[in-house]
């Protein structure tokens, strides 16, 4: 009765397009990132950095770092969904974690951790988030705080046994 159901934040849904498939018949690695960048656009829409918001504030987001973990092959025309968790925010940076899942059964296909920076396009230079954007981000952080930290978050790349 009191059980709280946590609905994932869906930031993009669609199908694997034929032009994203490589010679192995799978979604090519760069197109996973394209899908995740659409999901980041979805986040920007949510926090007031959609096209009108960008025009009004003169701000946009640049990606500083992006880390992909490929979990499963994905074939053409498969229906896919991106879930997004906000891992952290400071005055000008946004730390996101996207998970690509198969719509049919929720199977995790890939993850993408991103660090984005708010940019005043007049510079261009980094700048604090506009107050309204910062408010929306703060409420997302608060809403996502109870969610478990994803296993892939914060990891680095190394062969086993060689990690410093």
């Amino acid at each position: 009765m009191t059980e709280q159901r946590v609905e994932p934040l869906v930031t993009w849904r669609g199908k694997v397009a034929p032009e994203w498939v490589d010679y192995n018949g799978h979604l090519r690695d760069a197109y996973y990132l394209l899908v995740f960048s659409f999901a980041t656009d979805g986040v920007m829409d949510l926090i007031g950095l959609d096209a009108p918001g960008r025009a009004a504030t003169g701000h946009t987001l640049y990606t500083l770092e992006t880390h992909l973990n490929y979990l499963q092959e994905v074939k053409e025309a498969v229906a896919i969904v991106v879930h997004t968790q906000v891992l952290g925010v400071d005055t000008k940076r946004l730390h996101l974690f996207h998970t690509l899942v198969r719509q049919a059964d929720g199977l995790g296909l890939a993850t993408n951790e991103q660090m984005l920076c708010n940019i005043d396009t007049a510079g261009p230079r980094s700048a604090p988030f506009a107050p309204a954007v910062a408010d929306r981000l703060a409420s997302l952080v608060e809403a996502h705080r109870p969610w478990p930290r994803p296993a892939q978050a914060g990891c680095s790349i190394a062969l086993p046994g060689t990690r410093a």
Partner: protein
Amino acid sequence: MSEPKPQAHGVRTPLEGTPAKLWDPQAPIEAPLCLHRPAVLADWVDYNGHMSESCFLLVFGDSSDAFFRLIGIDERYRDVGGHSFYTVQTLIHHIREAALGDPLRLTLQLLDADDRRMHLFHAMFHGETGALLATGEQMLTHVDMALGRSCPMPAELHAKVQAILAAHALLPRPTQAGASIGIRRRT
């Protein structure tokens, strides 16, 4: 009944369909390898005129494909043996923007390898100014495509990978390699 056709697909690499190079064990190995020098295409830039982030990865992938063909991985290798390399992880650092028409120079450094995995480091430079634009660190695994499972490289391939690893052993470790993502707070 007709013959099975090669699977139609949308993404092609610049070298797709060209056979792998013959490996000369006596030839010196570039350190790092410099195998790909594209210019930024109109298809790769966004409404700001900057190369979009997924296209950085597309360019790193094209450089990987040139690397594969250097070590003997091509369509024939895939179709005859049923093996290929799959990317398991990728970490990109974006350092500077790239604009339409910019000449790019890609370098590829082999950081580590075992019997089935390769740990690669790509750097993307502006071809004229030499400015570092982005880096891409990747872990790739040799797979049996039918089983969908990793498997050791054949001995001949493993020997080439080890020769490149030895040639790259003296290169400095890139500062971006081995990083993880997080907000570092000043305390």
